[in-house]
């Protein structure tokens, strides 16, 4: 049902397995994931992994090891060689003990979502997941992964945390939800793979992809109609720019700071302020996504050039301004255009289909 599903895992070494076994394994993996998802529903964020969340199976190395032990066992039994039998039993029980260490290495880990930087459509979104270890013992070789790859394994020292990144392609604007990933470990010997399916519903904003077309931006306009004057003055408020050490505290935009938009300084222009006004209605002849894409391109160009700009959408208007917070506000408006009121679940391009919503949610 999810589009990601049909894609074979890139991690699995290609060519080693036949297509058939690979398909069977993918199918099995999918079934367990669906089942686990139904069983656990959406997880609270953060979540502490309890023992019942953790699944464990022997890895390919573990299966080979078991096969080797079986051969050794047959040999030792046949020759009634007790020392060889003892070796076989010792290696076997070492494997079983390792299985418990593997499971315990994962149990009790606290998983929380960390910040996720917005990306443009077509890029890879990186979700950052924090793994916290409250135990007085270190945990080793923890990693997270999904269909699109996995992070390099890290250790988490006693009473500390590590942040891992997981990638996911962001094909469309809007909210991208990391609706499933797994946290897994193969510690200590790689013979077992312990993992937990997690569904933290971490969201990431995906801006529209900036258009490649060369439609020129609307010309700079002055608010007052007076002559263009770049000289600094203190008459009219012209916008915000990032704070630099040495700026007068009188000019700091405390309101913006209170809105948690960062520390900015109000800029005053002389007699007039020039700015672009990027207007949805000016882009006739293009469909919705193309318009958004074009607006995005203009915003990026204007921001790079340091020009002030305003944005006018059919349901939303952002007055002219400058600065990264302004850019973010405008791009977010574009990203969520016509999606804002919708249910974020169905707006998620990653699980656009109707049956993507978990069938039953368990209360955490």
């Amino acid at each position, binding site marked *: 049902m999810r589009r990601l599903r049909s894609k074979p895992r890139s991690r699995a070494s290609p060519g080693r397995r036949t297509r058939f076994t690979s398909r069977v394994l993918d199918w099995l993996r999918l079934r367990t994931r669906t089942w686990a998802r139904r069983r656990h529903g959406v997880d609270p964020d953060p979540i502490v992994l309890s023992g019942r969340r953790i699944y464990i199976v022997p890895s390919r190395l573990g299966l080979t090891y078991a096969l080797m032990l079986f051969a050794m066992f047959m*040999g030792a039994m046949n020759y*009634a060689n007790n020392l060889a039998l003892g070796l076989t039993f010792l290696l076997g*029980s*070492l494997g079983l003990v*390792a299985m418990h260490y593997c499971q315990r290495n994962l*149990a009790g880990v606290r998983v929380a979502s960390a910040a996720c930087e917005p990306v443009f459509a077509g890029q890879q979104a990186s979700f950052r997941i924090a793994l916290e270890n409250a135990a007085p013992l270190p945990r*080793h070789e923890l990693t997270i992964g999904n269909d699109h790859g996995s992070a390099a394994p890290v250790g988490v020292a006693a009473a500390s945390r590590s942040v891992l990144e997981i990638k996911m392609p962001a094909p469309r604007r809007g909210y991208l939800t990391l609706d499933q990933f797994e946290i897994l470990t193969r510690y200590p010997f*790689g013979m077992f793979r312990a993992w937990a399916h997690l569904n933290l519903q971490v969201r990431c904003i995906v801006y529209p992809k900036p258009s490649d077309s060369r439609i020129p931006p609307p010309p700079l306009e002055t608010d007052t109609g007076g002559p263009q004057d770049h000289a600094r003055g203190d008459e009219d408020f012209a916008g915000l720019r990032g704070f630099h050490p040495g700026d007068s505290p009188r000019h700091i935009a405390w309101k913006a700071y209170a809105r948690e938009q960062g520390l900015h300084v109000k800029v005053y222009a002389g007699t007039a302020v020039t700015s672009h006004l990027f207007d949805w209605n000016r882009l006739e002849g293009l469909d919705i996504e193309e318009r958004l894409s074009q607006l995005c391109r203009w915003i990026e160009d204007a921001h790079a050039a340091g020009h002030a700009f305003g944005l006018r959408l059919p349901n939303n208007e952002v007055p002219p301004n400058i600065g990264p917070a302004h850019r973010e506000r405008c791009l977010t408006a574009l990203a969520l255009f016509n999606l804002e009121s919708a249910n974020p679940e169905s707006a998620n391009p990653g699980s656009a289909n109707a049956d993507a919503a978990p069938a039953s949610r368990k209360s955490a």
Partner: protein
Amino acid sequence: MSRSAAPDPTRMQHLLWVIACLAMAAAPHLPGVPLWIILFTASSAAWRLTVESLRWRLPPTWLRSLIAISAMLGVFVTYRTLNGLEAGSAFLVVMGGMKLLETHSRRDLTVVLFVACFLLFATFLYNQSLLRLPYMLGSVWLFALTLLRIHQREPMPVREALRGTGRMLMQAIPVAVLLFLFFPRLPGQFWAMPARSKATSGLSGDMSPGDVSELSLSDEIAFRVKFTDGPPRPEQRYWRGPVLHDFDGVTWRMAKVGYLERGVTALGPSYEYRIVLQPHQRNWVFALDAVTRWPSTTRRNFDYQLLANEPIATLSSFKLTSSPVYRVDGDLPRALELTTLRLPPQRNSRSLALARQLRAASGSDVDFIRAVLAKFRNEKYYYTLEPPRLQLDSVDDFMFNTRRGFCEHFASAFTVLARAAGIPARVVTGYQGGEINPMTGYIVVRQSDAHAWSEVWLPPQGWVRVDPTAAVAPERVERGRQGTLIDNEPATRRLFGELHALLQLRRTWDAVNTFWNDQVVSFSQAQQQSILERLGLQDTDWRALGIALILSLAGFFTALSLWLAWRFRPHNDDAVARAYQRLCRKLARRDLERAAHEGPNDYLQRVAAQQPQLGAAVGEIRELYIGLRYGPNPQNTQLRRLKIAVRQLRV
């Protein structure tokens, strides 16, 4: 493609660990493996390490295939087979080396590790001595460590890894012991144990007294014997091995054909005993002379040597009965008489002449034998472990020239003389003597007790044992070789006297080994049954055993799981907070739960107001807590007082 794109510093380490494992597993095989295989694997390892450190390319596939094929051919040519234990382990050693040449992934490294595991496994098929146990534990530890390291991206310090894997190993040992004790055993074999081509006995099946004068002086144990009711006298302890009939002038050999068998009748007491043979790859069972009752897994040869049906490739034990004093029933078969009188023509002519002359001077065969033994005793013949080499006519050279030798020389000379005098005679090899270990009650027979004596056919009794060595060095027979050396060399005796403690140590070590052999190496279904009976489980079948095993393992792993969970429990380092939380829990039990908005001050004041009888205690706790948290100079005594106050609070 074969070149590593990014140099990985940990890869070199991984390689070194894996090579260490391979070396550890292969080391016990080295004495039995041809030199070229050792060199091959060692140079493969060296090549691989050079490739890694200089970041060369790995050898191309065609070269690797060529090397692999030629190495396999080499093994085949060396052993003429790829089957069997020796060829198999040589093949594994070669395989480990070949696999090293193409390791670039973790998977390749684990393949080498698995090869090493099989090599370690194979060492126990050769040898199950007690010392192998610590070697096994050490090797498994190294394997675990290596497996851990090659699966780690962020290598942990070696000491931590050692401790971690050591702990896992310690926890695996009880499980392994449980499995060992209770895993249902099968009574028989599916296929036979392949014998090693190289025999390890002190006896060889033939005897060339004139040859390079080497003698097994090894203190290695050949077998142990436990008598049901006391052992026979030392001079009766002749353990029969191969009987040599054919002499070509240089070498005595076993008869190539069988002869008619004659039974024996015991003339004295019978001894019941159990013999536990160290593996020596031959099917000789060194029974006390002469064996009268034996199990169906063995058979008695026409020359009364006891032979096992299979070569003794593992520690094996047999229950036997023997009578040291016996008489052969019936007469000597004609064919055997001819064989035991035959001498190589035109050899040792002086000895033959001497024999004929002595026979003519003696009244009977018995007198002749006495005369020969008297000659050995009275003339200057010497017992020595380092005799000179003998000329082609070895008996002549020994009798008239060198006059020095050990049991083989005397037995050979005596037999030749007897045959020349017309008395059917043959050489018997085996062991003589043995040392009683008072700690176990076992008689321990070592390789250095190997011996050779003669048998002559004297009509009323049949075959009669004559030990010409006893004529020269009687103490050799009464006290074993150790005794002989002591008496001949005073320095050694003094040394031994001083080293009485050493002897005691040796006996203790032997006792430990006997226990190991009896309880571990030959642990079987029968011992399993007796353990279960001691545990109060009568008439258990393998199903009950399996269920008991699974239950006990489940119990162990539940305990392990709980222990691990306890070790990983979230820990609060803050003792003050812990004490405060304990207080909150206590109060909550009396419906005095702390509201989310209440700080300690508000909360405890409210508690004091609602429960005036707690006021004083809670007030003290409040003071202490605030003092510890916000006071200028928190004291340890305050913390202790806080803990006590919280504990003593009665709600």
